[in-house]
């Protein structure tokens, strides 16, 4: 039972960490895009 729980727990943990990392990256890029848009707006 321990091995089964370890296997399933590992998959959960790996997917959770991956989603967290990609989600944070998307948020950072979106913030940078907004910043650049604000900088570009007065010139337009």
């Amino acid at each position, binding site marked *: *039972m321990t*091995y*089964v729980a*370890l*296997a*399933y727990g*590992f*998959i*959960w943990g*790996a*997917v959770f960490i*991956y*989603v967290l990392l*990609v*989600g944070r*990256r*998307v948020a950072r*890029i*979106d913030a*940078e*895009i907004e910043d*650049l*848009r604000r*900088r*570009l707006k007065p*010139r337009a």
Partner: protein
Amino acid sequence: MLSTMPSARRSRARFLVGLLLTMHGFFVAPLLVANAPLEKTMGIVQKIFYFHVPCAWLLILSTFVCAGGSLAYLFAGSERGDRLALCSAELGVLFGLCVMVTGPLWARAAWGVFWTWDVRLTSSLLLWLMLIGYGLARRYGGAGGRRLAAAMALFAAADVPLVYLSVNLWRGLHPNTRTVSSLAPGMRLPFFFSLAIFSALWGVLLALRMRAEHSQARLVELAIAIEDAEGNSA
């Protein structure tokens, strides 16, 4: 900007719905697996099969999608294909890691060792390492890194038939390809449900990762536009 907001919200909503459905499945799958009949010789540890095989399937799917995207990039110059290849290679590394961890846990209980140089295990390890190599070639390969990585993806795809058929061609410790088709009736529903949920999760993660790549491309376009505007005003 305003005109693009609703579609951005829609895509976020679609992503959240997909994620919730998948997460729901991740809670239901263990219940089905727990109620599945016990395998006679291995007992409860055989239940790792319900998660290990879907992860291995996603490793193979990721490799094929990565190779398809790489082909589009190499022969048609498709940037979208290149982005798809990168995202699927990353998912291949993620699910390959799950295979490399869950497999040895099962092996320890069934064979008494975490690892043995069985041809299925070795060819799977090579496939996983090739996908890691793909990422490294892109990151550190310099100007031609993306083309080099794309060529590596084709080699990785060529390894997939070897991985799949190795258990039939060379009789090792690993169960052969007829295991799924010979499953007991009570084991089929939990297995195929788990396979469907893992595949759905893969789709959701690919969409999330593609969105990150798309945003990154837009960021580069905006930075170039600002540089041009600054150059014109100087």
